[in-house]
């Protein structure tokens, strides 16, 4: 039982992170190779507050998210105006910089030896609940004017601006919202493993998230969530294949990208999303 619960908890945390990538990459078309660093910001902020100031979980999470958003804001101001390949590079550089800072402030963060003894507040129900909340928020975002504006900006910035869309503004909003979710995932992670170290949040993790989103279908929130669950548990399922499993995983992803480039789900969304939205509309 404990095994399934731990897989479920980690999968839920991955779902939160993947939701953030869906918002940033899937909706707004921004390509962040440093998103894992925002997870680090959330994890370390909450972890430090909990271990050093004995802060309770909830405020620590709030501070973690706020720190993630602040970092996103500072990175976003100069970056989001750049062309898209540069955004990938700058976020990548930011990620490396964050790791360097964490390693160099050992008296606060524990440096390479990690931050230990974080109170394990994240229980399975908490993680699952927050994952559901994150997905609902992302769905609401997608079907609000902000979501439409994101997609429009992703498709065609000039046309979007001629329809009155504030391109820089909506990119920033998506980046802030997404990074808040990433930081949230970080706070959950820190309070589940009770231990974080800078090496966990390197750019390959960001790349892995992007792969997951594309696997499910970059234009589908349903796809992103399902892919997070599938690919999050796939290494578990393949555990018996020992050292071969990452190779098998890569082959699977390559097959999907090649033979179904729009991802498993394409643009398909579970009808549930829309019908809930419709019911809400009628009720409201």
């Amino acid at each position: 039982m404990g095994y399934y619960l731990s897989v479920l908890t980690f999968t839920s945390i991955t779902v939160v992170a993947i939701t953030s990538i869906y918002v940033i990459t899937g909706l707004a078309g921004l390509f962040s190779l440093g998103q894992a660093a925002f997870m680090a910001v959330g994890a370390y902020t909450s972890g430090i507050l909990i271990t050093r100031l004995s802060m309770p979980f909830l405020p620590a999470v709030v501070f973690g998210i706020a720190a993630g958003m602040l970092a996103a804001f500072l990175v976003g101001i100069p970056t989001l105006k750049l062309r898209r390949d540069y955004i990938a590079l700058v976020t990548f550089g930011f990620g490396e910089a964050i790791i360097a800072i964490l390693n160099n402030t050992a008296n606060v963060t524990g440096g390479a030896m990690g931050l230990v003894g974080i109170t394990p507040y994240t229980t399975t129900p908490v993680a699952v609940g927050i994952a559901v909340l994150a997905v609902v928020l992302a769905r609401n975002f997608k079907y609000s004017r902000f979501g439409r504006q994101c997609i429009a900006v992703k498709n065609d910035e000039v046309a979007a601006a001629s329809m009155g869309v504030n391109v820089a503004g909506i990119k920033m909003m998506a980046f802030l919202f997404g990074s808040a979710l990433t930081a949230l995932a970080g706070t959950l992670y820190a309070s589940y493993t009770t231990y974080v170290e800078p090496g966990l949040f390197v750019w390959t993790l960001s790349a892995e998230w992007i792969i997951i989103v594309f696997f499910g279908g970059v234009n589908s929130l349903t796809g992103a969530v399902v892919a997070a669950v599938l690919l999050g548990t796939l290494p578990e399922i393949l555990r018996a294949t020992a050292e071969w499993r990452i190779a098998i995983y890569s082959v699977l992803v390559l097959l999907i990208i090649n033979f179904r480039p729009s991802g498993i789900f394409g643009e398909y969304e579970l009808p549930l999303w829309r019908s809930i939205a419709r019911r809400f509309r009628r009720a409201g």
Partner: protein
Amino acid sequence: MKKLAIITIVLFAAAAMLVSASGQREDGAIRIGVIQDLSGPTSVWGNAVARGAELAVSEINAAGGIDGRQVELRTYDVRLSPQEAITAYNRLVDQDRVTAIVGPPISNIGLSLAPVAQAKGVPIVGSFIDPRVTVQPNGEPWTNMFLMQPSSVQYSEIIADFALTELGARNLAVMYDQTNAFSVSLVEPFRNYVNAHGGNVALEVTYTSDDRDFRTQLSQIQRSGADAVYLPIYIQEAVLTLQQAEQVGLDIPMIGGLDFAPPFTDLLPDPTLADGIYVANNYSDSEPQLVDVRAAYMDMFGEEPINKAFKGYDKILIIADAIRRAGSTEPAAVSRAIARTSNLRGTTGILTISPDNHQPVGLSMVMYQIINGEYSELGRHVPESHR
């Protein structure tokens, strides 16, 4: 599209069921788990530990098993990820129902496993060098975490003592990888010991694991006028360091750790480059207990065992010994027995584990000096205070 999505999900569900069905315990076999990095940045060590453990188990089984029961290994890859380590641990405990677990030589993994193991009760015997893996902040040991090699404190004290007493060095420099927990954990105890015993750490320089050029750092060491330099670093960086030290003209004595042990000199473009280096290892090649194990390992895997392979072997010995003494495969009983391991002859020394901190007692390290590209043994070194 819906069809494809559904097919995928069904396939996954089927696979998941298959996996959960495999959790049956076979008749009579004792199951021991192995958590290692079989892939990822530290895969070389993980695979070596796993193979060492495999060898030990096959020997135990060939000799009739433990109390007549065969031993079966369950090996899971965690690719240096605490997240994978926690799920792998849970799986070994809940699905595979193992008696004990062979842990990796990676402190970061140990740090994330300690609280989980405390809660779930299956012991882990690892070579996590960071003492925080075995000892809680309140000074109590983590009930189910065990270390079977000198901790970073013991290890760096042995080296520091060697430098002060045998080399007569007073001014020491240290170069280490700031982004690597193993490397970092070996610095502070070294500095403390040196300062407390009449020496002085004149300079500490760092690099990060992405760096490939250490010439600037090495020049700084050269200009600092240190008598000797301590290098608690990984093997690839050690290779680079020696090559670049030669270029910079740094020729003060260097003292390295486990990563300078064989096959280190084989990786150098010229083994004599390592001449004059002092190396600490857990065991001596000349010690008789190693000879057979080495031969068997080469027989089984077709290559030289590295240091970590012997540790994998010894971890199984410790667990097997504890199961025999406990007369039970109950994890809690085995855990208590491991804590009382005493005078067990392993390949890496005589193993005695202290119940107070779950770390080995009185483990010495074998010091070598490399001469003409060959490891020349200087004997085991134990500081006064460790005896």
